[in-house]
């Protein structure tokens, strides 16, 4: 009984993450359009896109391709159930942040495996860039999360949230400002927004990993991105903004973070890969290290 309850709740969280993610993407397009002085598509445009993609015929390069792309979405969905979302915290004893991060790696691995098995070098180059960039943003992010670990004396997201309870001034965002800025820049890379979107550069490598994806495969890709946005901003909310009392506030907090990322995305051009990585290893890492020193000493 408990099992089914949890199962249904998990499905609910998964659906929530997908819809919030897609909505964010749509709103993001709208906002970007407004920044560009355009009108922009409707906010639900991405729902339309996803539905269209799933209704469209597609080509595949074999079972590794299918499996990889399914894994990309599924693993993220599997990770999202461990994320405390507002009052919904399905597995409070199991919300270790590192575990969630590593589970997300499964999604990257699946995605990378799928698109690379298509045999298109553009896809592989895209993956190579994405992974290189991952190396870039994971390091400052690690600096930040380990600082938070030491600061909060816990590694579980549930407990980190609990440690921040009691108002705005207890938020890690205020208490660990350098870490927050570093993590915010890392989040930009994690979301794959400009200036760190070299992995999917359409003009250079024909949209990179997505080059061979058609129809439902692209749909899975969009879902993965949606869940990814939800998960990554959700982690940030839990780490720095003290979680949320309920889902709506949680989503609003997520949107705040996403909004910053969007603004940056809308006005900046793209880095080259090594520039991106070295940027990540200069400013955010420096901030993260300063934060770490403050925490440790």
């Amino acid at each position, binding site marked *: 009984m408990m099992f089914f309850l949890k199962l249904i709740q998990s499905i609910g969280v998964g659906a929530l993450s997908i819809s919030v993610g897609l909505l964010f993407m749509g709103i993001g397009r709208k906002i970007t359009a407004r920044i560009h002085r355009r009108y922009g598509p409707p906010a639900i445009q991405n729902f339309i896109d996803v539905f269209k993609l799933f209704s469209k015929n*597609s080509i595949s390069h074999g079972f590794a391709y299918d499996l990889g792309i399914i894994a990309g979405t599924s693993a993220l969905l599997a990770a999202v159930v461990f994320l405390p979302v507002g009052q919904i915290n399905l597995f409070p004893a199991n919300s270790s942040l590192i575990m969630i991060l590593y589970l997300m790696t499964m999604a990257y691995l699946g995605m990378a495996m799928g698109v690379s098995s298509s045999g298109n070098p553009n896809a592989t180059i895209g993956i190579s860039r994405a992974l290189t960039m991952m190396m870039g943003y994971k390091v400052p992010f690690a*600096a930040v999360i380990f600082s938070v670990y030491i600061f909060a004396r816990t590694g579980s997201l549930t407990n980190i949230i609990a440690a921040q309870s009691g108002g705005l001034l207890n938020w890690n965002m205020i208490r660990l400002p350098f870490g927050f800025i570093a993590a915010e820049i890392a989040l930009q890379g994690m979301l794959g927004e400009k200036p760190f979107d070299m992995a999917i550069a359409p003009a250079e490598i024909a949209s990179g990993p997505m080059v061979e994806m058609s129809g439902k495969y692209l749909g899975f890709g969009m879902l993965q991105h949606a869940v990814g946005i939800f998960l990554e901003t959700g982690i940030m909310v839990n780490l720095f903004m003290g979680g949320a009392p309920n889902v709506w506030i949680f989503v609003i907090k997520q949107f705040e973070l996403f909004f910053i990322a969007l603004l940056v995305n809308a006005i900046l051009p793209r880095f080259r890969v090594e520039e991106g*990585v070295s940027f990540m290893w200069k400013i955010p890492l420096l901030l993260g290290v300063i934060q770490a020193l403050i925490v440790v000493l």
Partner: protein
Amino acid sequence: MNSNLIWLVFTPLIGSAIAAILYNYKFLDRLITFSTFAITLFLVFGTHVGQTYSMNLNFMGRMIPLSWNVTHLSIFMLYISIVFGTILTFYSLMDRSRMKGFLLLLILAANNWIFTTNDMVGFFFAWELMGWASIVSVLGGRKERKSRHAALYYALMSIGGSYSMFFGLFTLWRLTGSFSISSNLAYLSSIVGVHPWWVLGIVSLFFVTFMIKAGIFPFHTWVPMAYAYAPDTFTPFLSAVMSKYGIYGMLLFLPISLMEKGMPTVFGLPWVNYIFVWIGVITAVLGTVLAFFQDDVKKLFAYSSLSNLGYIVAAISLFTSVGVTAGIYHAFNHLLFKGALFITLAAVISRSGTSKLSEMGGLWKKMPVTFFTFFIGIASAAGIPPFNGFGSKWLIYQSMIKQHLLFATILLFLASTGAFLYLFKAFHSIFLGQLSHNYDNVKEVPVIGQIVEYLLMFAMIFFGIQPGYILRPVGLIVKSVGLNPLAVMGNGYVTGMFSNVDMPLIGWSLAISFVFGFILFFISAKHKYVSQEDNYTAGQIPQDWGLTPETYQFSWKFYEPMEKLFAPFYRIKIDGFFRGLGDWTRITGSAVKQVFVGNAQIYTLFAVVGLIILVIAGWVA
């Protein structure tokens, strides 16, 4: 009854003699190797903790007591090494590479001896035996010249290491008059407060040996060469089992805690331990960074082994309960996944005939079972949760964080992220991408190989989801070295300090979300399978363009941006130090041999000068 400890050593020796006699009958040789491993495994079932045995060896005209003592650690190491060896030799039944069965059995004998002995004479004997047997085993790789060079390099490092241990054990003998490991360790513990520097010196003599065997940072240079150019079916053993001897040795000596004994501490750690943590971290990062750019797949995974051993060393050097648990647990995990990876590599290399990443590609269509084994292997190696590599990495981070070793942890995290990069590079370049027409006739490995691969897949998933089966014995080991073991809540839990990870839960979560993924996949519109030629080529028609699968495969300079980033670090060559030492020795040698000029008069002159010097010495004295 207790004499079965002796038979643990003698059975492989006898098997080795038989295998050496039957060396020319390849299959029989392999069969005997396998069955000896199986028999030894059977013998291990009969051993239990606390079993001791001793006998006297007549040596130097006096009786040297040889003693055996089975501890929790030794029985754990025995099980994992022999089970893996059995699987490997079963796999090698069908293999055609030039692995020498009798040498593997000699190593097995040494293996059993090292893990059960309680006297340093036996330890040293077995260590040397293992050393030379592995050196000769490395010799038979696919590339003659390179494997010869690798074996030579390995031999020199290894011999240097064993001489260092030679020194150490005799120094201990001079101090205590005993060869017994346990009493010597007790002696060292007792004097550590009085003469910490002495203890440090003696222990470091041993640690140099262990570091060389495990391939830890300043002594890592032999690892990539030896791993890469050893016979393909020997490399799994080299990486999975033999690197653990060093770890075992370190675990023997680590309980001599320098804590509370007046040594200065850093972050609550004795500074020696702190240095070792950093050595481990440097090894981990170095292995990762160097692994990015390898084109030889075995070399790549050799660096990966290096990196993982760095993790282990960093964890066990902390010598906290979490650290030691994590280290031993990671040693087991590394044995499992790296063994599986090297076995699949052996399969791939034997089928494709190359170990160059830039020459392979697209093999997943031809070797699906191998592909899945490799996939699960790299997922484990990257530490992805439901598979077996995660728990130990997670514990390692926790143990480091607990000591507030923040920068070390960040670097370890960097190494782990980097691990994902190079693992994916290997994965892509071997199995994904375009299948060259050279490999049109490549087949899946034979049934024996497939059985082994299924077994390893199962093991990696099983021990990932049920870590309790490993953590319980590890807990006993941790208890036996005098630390508090971590609580094991259930078979499915990895219990950390702050929270625990419920592995079956992750498994369920993944499984259910996969089910949903597949449902979505199958209810949505149809897909059709196309060939690899039908690919986006920016409108160009591949046939007109002269496009071949090889030219449309991206595996050369996979992480080129990284190369630019890491370029400054490439100028630092540790290897260069040893090579420089070698060159210096060679130059000195050529200079020294000029002494023998080949002229009778000069020789006479030498004699006369020598005489005069001696006379003067006598006069002065």
